[in-house]
């Protein structure tokens, strides 16, 4: 048995984000990489965490409630009307 499997899968899923952010010490990082190379379940889990983050990145242009948007644009017009100092 190789190093990678001395991390159990139920432990690995709790350090996925530390792993992806490069926050693990070098030895643990390497053991996670080795585990992922041998374990389809964990490899799929990590892949899906990345996929989830990627899809979240497509939500940036969420629609705003129209009344809120209108209030904000109204506030902008108010600010503009009050401001506009000459020169």
């Amino acid at each position: 048995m190789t190093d990678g499997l001395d991390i159990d899968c139920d432990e690995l899923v709790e350090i996925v984000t530390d792993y992806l952010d490069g926050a693990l010490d070098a030895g643990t990082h390497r053991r996670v990489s080795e585990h992922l190379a041998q374990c389809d379940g964990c490899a799929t889990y990590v892949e899906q965490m990345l996929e989830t983050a990627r899809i979240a990145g497509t939500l940036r242009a969420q629609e705003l409630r129209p009344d809120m948007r209108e209030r904000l644009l109204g506030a902008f017009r108010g600010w503009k009307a009050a401001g506009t100092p000459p020169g």
Partner: protein
Amino acid sequence: MDVRQSGRAGAAPGAAADDGDGALVRELRAGDERVFAELVDRMTPAMLAIAAGYVPGRSVAEEVVQEAWLAVLTGLDRFEGRSSLRTWVFGIVVNVARRRGARERRSVPFSDAFAFAGEAGDEVGPTVDPGRFRGRDDEWPGHWASPPRPWDLPESALLAGEVRDRLRAALDVLPPRQRMVVHLRDVQGLAADEVCAVLGIEPGNQRVLLHRGRARLRQALEDYLNGDRA
């Protein structure tokens, strides 16, 4: 809406790289409402998520965001470009929301106040159902008993409306502090150190909140995708 979404990858006007911030600020000061509207569309969801981490209820959070946008406009002359425009704006929301949160806590009973204090997001326990792993007396304790099945969806399907709707719904019901961090890291694409600076939290805490939030969102997608195809 589709134009803006596809624009995220590149060339949407106003969806600027940081070095475009100076130009954006000049356009705002010149009163360009189109530029303001784009910033509002792009940043307000994350601002609402931040506000919800400090104050109770959607309507108070909306008031905080409106006050923050006004503070942004009246403070444009003080924007020095030392941070990106985004992190500057998010920092203003945090300040307004903190002040408002402190005021709200003084005016409501303590137990109610505590329910929206940040600590509510600091749950403990595993992020994956322990029932999915083999028991301690198994030959392979702690290893998958029911591993996740690959999604294997084509790009078009992953980005299709329904998957995104499902993710958005799950994001909206995350515990407030997890929701703030996921919005800033994954939706807005801020770096970890920017998120720590904006929210005033430690890197380890930031990763815990991100991890718990992402794990819940992944599970929501798994429920949907595998349930749908079973």
